[in-house]
């Protein structure tokens, strides 16, 4: 263009500056991107998936049962160290520890997962209503102060004795003793957000409490909820193991990591593989769950998105 053209006036472009040039923001895509950026989390996720697959698929093929009188008389099969036929060796009944561990893991993980999902679901709903309503808060705080001070393990023991052992009984007992503290954590968060200006704005627009919880508060709590889940699952697994250790919780014909570890505590040094391999598997499940959960929780916090 010539100088004359360049230095002549052109129409103003007011509206153009309103255009946002950055690409559309998508919450879940940003969460995914943040998660994937952590190599550790990806590695742990792969490990976790592998462990889960083994726990749920291997027992189908092995047909393992705890009380298997099939080869019980063949003493040569007992207490074998890990070898090419039995990767984890054999246990006191001559069965492959490999089969036992995965069958046990399946039970332990299932109960922990179900307990986590159920207690978190109840805890979030109760906690949200609790936090939003000032009158319910006054009441629930008293309930919480009482209930929270009773040691969880004691209650579990009592319920175990009262209702007997069994998968669903244990599940019930675990949920009943955990939802309160989850509800409390959620309540604390809800109170933080409840009086923020955008919530006041929603009230002036006539928004009902249920919608407030669903649209205004819960979306901000995703990070917190994921943290809770990632903390609770390892807690439940450990709890089941601990109860198995005490000889309560699951019945003796249900395979579980807790039972195995309990059975072989005498073997910490002698035939050590019998104790340490189940412990190792337990540790791997717990740690990988925790790391994946924590990374997901951080990634869900929009403040970490750029």
């Amino acid at each position: 263009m010539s100088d004359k053209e360049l230095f002549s006036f052109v129409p103003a472009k007011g509206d153009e500056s309103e255009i946002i040039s950055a690409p559309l923001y998508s919450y879940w895509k940003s969460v995914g991107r943040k998660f994937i950026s952590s190599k550790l989390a990806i590695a742990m996720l792969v490990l976790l998936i592998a462990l889960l697959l083994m726990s749920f698929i291997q027992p189908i093929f092995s047909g393992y049962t705890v009380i298997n009188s099939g080869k019980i008389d063949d003493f040569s099969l007992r207490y074998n160290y890990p070898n090419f036929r039995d990767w984890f060796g054999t246990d006191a009944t001559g069965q492959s520890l490999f089969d036992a561990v995965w069958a046990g893991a399946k039970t332990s993980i299932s109960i922990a997962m179900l307990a986590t999902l159920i207690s978190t679901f109840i805890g979030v709903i109760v906690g949200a209503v609790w936090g939003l309503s000032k009158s319910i808060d006054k009441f629930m705080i008293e309930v919480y102060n009482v209930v929270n001070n009773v040691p969880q393990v004691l209650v579990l023991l009592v319920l175990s004795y009262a209702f007997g052992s069994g998968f669903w009984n244990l599940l019930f007992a675990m949920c009943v003793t955990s939802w309160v503290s989850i509800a409390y954590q959620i309540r604390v968060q809800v109170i933080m957000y409840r009086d923020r200006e955008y919530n006041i704005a929603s009230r002036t627009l006539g928004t009902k409490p249920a919608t407030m919880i669903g649209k205004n508060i819960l979306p901000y709590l995703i990070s917190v909820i994921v943290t809770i889940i990632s903390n609770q699952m390892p807690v439940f697994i450990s709890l089941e193991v601990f109860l198995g250790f005490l000889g309560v919780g699951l019945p003796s014909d249900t395979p579980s990591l807790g039972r195995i570890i309990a059975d072989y505590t005498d073997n910490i040094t002698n035939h050590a593989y019998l104790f340490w391999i189940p412990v190792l598997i337990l540790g791997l499940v717990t740690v990988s769950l925790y790391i994946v959960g924590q990374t997901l929780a951080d990634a869900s916090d929009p403040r970490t998105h750029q």
Partner: protein
Amino acid sequence: MSNKKVILSAKDISVEFQVRNRTLRAIRNISVDLHEGETLALVGESGSGKSVFTKVFTGMLETNGSVSTGTVTYGDMNLTNLKTNAEWEKIRGGQISTVFQDPMTSLNPIKTIGSQISETIIKHQGRSSEEAKAIAIDLMNRVGIPEAEKRYDEYPFQYSGGMRQRIVIAIALSSRPKVLICDEPTTALDVTIQAQIIALLKELKEEYGFAMIFITHDLGVVASIADKVAVMYSGEIVEYGTVEDIFYDSRHPYTWALLSSLPQLATTEKLYSIAGTPPSLYSEIKGDAFAPRNPKPMAIDFVEIPPKFPVSDTHWAKTWLLDERAPELTKPEGIQDLHDKMVKIYAKEGGA
């Protein structure tokens, strides 16, 4: 004033940020000098980069930001070479202090006011704690805290916003810095408190003799406190001059727009406002950054960034309008004879 020594100097400073694998230029080639005892007002909207620019002087850029070109000199020390926190600690707080906008978050809520002032004195001047306390109380008196002795042991929550900002100023001045950077120090305060804080800063400047960089987006405050004014837009200084140059002889369309939108100039029917939204700090700019919002742009504004055009010894502007090839364009009618207009407005108003 123009013979005073230069105490702080920025030459061709550009600042870049790493955001998601992209490099974005937040500050684009700024050169400006601050003279001894002078108050330089940095005027601009959000996103103009004024805070980022002043952080360059105290080494407080965020971790993903860096000075990509240019040098900053303080006296005869080259600040761009400072890398470690330890090196910056000698300058920051001691030679160059900053007063931030929010007095609520600038103070530590769990320490007494007195201890926070004394701490700085002990650190930068190496005094004993009794000496520091005496100096601190003296400072508190100086910045207008009533019953300073008693209030020395109180906590920030027992102070009002204006009082807290006075303490922040006291802390900033405790080590007698040569340069005080004030980043919108009165924006969060009530109007009457703002007036008092500005009066206080002017007095302290007379007494202590420091140079000041004052960031604001309020032209009234600029008129009150500035000797020189730099108008920033989208990471550049688009006009620079004495406060009289900027108010009575402005040359850049953005400065015209800012002056035109002063509420005092509104008639009963119309208040001038600038169309559109300022570009975000991270947008790509082609040509003159203000062009999309300029009510009378030229074709070249969308093509090439204008260079600095001098208007006088003290005054320059980055606009193609000052190029000799450009057609005549006088500033908008609304801001011509600004002084006379203001005199009329304020003569009518009682109490001014």
